[in-house]
């Protein structure tokens, strides 16, 4: 069985892409950057906790926010479910597919075995749309796959019921209804204001602009935490992956945010948002320079103290730039 007329397309990010595809399928035309922007997706967080084997960072807001924010700001009604019993979770998925519904599932990325081996890591916040079933295999619309993919029931079950941080517990959701009239301008205003607020005002030292500064400072200490030079090289090169490859749309989501601000400028008829869009596109370019720099020094094992300090300085410059940008955006958001 296949969900009729579901249109599979690649997207930059799994959650914004999954939500966008579901909304489009439900007859609500909206772009991925718009979903990302009104959800205040742009963010930064630096983490050095027991959950991670090595310090890491994120460039987006909390997983699940895209669905929650589109529900709150656009009035979309989603049905969400979690399951204690994996078999019950799989049965419910089958039942929904039989009703011809595309269903979004939260999974551990590691078990999505149709993706290249080297990109698959254990992370419990991957989202896919399940759009059909053939025998013991599910048809998956994964934003990171150019084509519809096939995944065994066993792998999907493992992915949906993996334990650990952000354990999915079989979480699934689908669109119940989309309102007839949507106040897009209101959602955009709220989304921009919240994003700027989160980047600037959260009083936690590892989040927002403060998180970028902490990253800049701590990256110099990474050799102390690495097993050896190859491990350090691997972690440094992951900076490139986190900023460019791991579903950000490039430049650590800054390019996608620029696209959102441009769309917002047209909807709100505010040329000043167009200017902000160009500014964040430029900031994204300079994040990409950091990505390329990290890949190069990692490959060459050129990871001495001076080189890492240079990397830290580049990251700090992004913090300086983004602090000014988000202060201006916050100020502007009050006049929207």
């Amino acid at each position, binding site marked *: 069985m296949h969900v009729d007329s579901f249109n599979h397309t*690649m*997207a*930059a990010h799994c959650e914004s892409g999954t939500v966008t595809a579901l909304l489009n399928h439900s007859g609500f035309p909206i772009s*991925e*950057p718009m979903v990302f922007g009104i959800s205040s997706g742009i963010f930064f967080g630096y983490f050095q906790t*027991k*959950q*991670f*084997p*090595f310090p890491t960072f994120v460039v987006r807001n909390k997983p699940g926010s895209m669905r929650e924010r589109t529900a709150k700001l656009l009035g979309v009604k989603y049905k969400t479910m979690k399951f204690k019993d994996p078999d019950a979770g799989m049965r419910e998925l089958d039942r929904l597919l039989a009703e011809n519904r595309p269903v979004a599932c939260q999974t551990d990325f*590691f*078990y999505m075995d149709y993706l*290249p081996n*080297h*990109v698959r*890591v*254990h992370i419990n916040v991957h989202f896919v749309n399940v759009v059909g079933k053939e025998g013991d295999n599910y048809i998956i619309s994964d*934003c*990171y796959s*150019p084509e519809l993919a096939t995944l065994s029931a066993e792998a999907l079950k*493992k992915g949906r019921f*993996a*334990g*650990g*941080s952000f*354990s999915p517990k079989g979480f699934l959701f689908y669109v119940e209804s989309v309102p007839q009239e949507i106040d897009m301008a209101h959602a955009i205003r709220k989304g921009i204001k919240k994003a700027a607020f989160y980047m600037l005002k959260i009083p936690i030292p590892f989040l927002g602009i403060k998180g970028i500064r902490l990253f800049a400072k701590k990256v110099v200490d990474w050799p102390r935490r690495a097993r050896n030079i*190859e*491990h350090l*090289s*691997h972690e440094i*090169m992951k900076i*490139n*992956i986190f900023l*460019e*490859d791991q*579903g950000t*749309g*490039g*430049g650590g989501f800054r*390019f*996608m945010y*620029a*696209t959102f601000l*441009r769309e917002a400028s047209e909807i709100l008829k505010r040329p000043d948002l167009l200017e902000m*869009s160009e500014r964040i*596109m430029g900031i*994204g*370019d300079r994040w*990409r320079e950091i990505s*390329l720099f990290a*890949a190069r020094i*990692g*490959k060459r094992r050129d990871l001495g103290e001076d080189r890492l300090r240079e990397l830290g300085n580049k990251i700090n410059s992004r913090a300086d730039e983004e602090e000014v940008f988000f202060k201006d955006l916050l100020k502007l958001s009050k006049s929207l």
Partner: protein
Amino acid sequence: MKDKEAHIDYKEHQLVLYVEREDGTYGPMQTGSYISKNYIDDYWLKRENLEKEYRARVEKGEITPIEYYMVIEELSVSELAARVKLSSRAVKMHMIPKHFAKMSIEVLKRYADVFDVPIVSLLQAIIVSKNGLKISLKKTDNPLFVLLKIDIP
């Protein structure tokens, strides 16, 4: 980022980037992964070295296959513990060979499920010395029994 700069010819790993098009508009573009195209060999080299290093340590009895797979799959002790539903202390014990030897098959299977390997892979490593020889482990309906398949070219 300009669309021309974003274009990477690498079919094996495709992704979407948001770019500035020639007409000045912004939008998505499907392209190849820069890091996969340019640095994948380096990734596999490091991975191979890591596997060799940790396998040698398992062989010497310094560590257990639990630590081997935990490091290869980039999990922390606390994350692995949460996934196998044990305490961090228990996982640390299973990383010591003398305690690993006392582990029940049921617990071993929980680890194998998380690492997504057949249970026998926690008790052996397969080394292929002849080029072109393809060896694979095939799961069966019996979770404690796998088929070792050898394809001779």
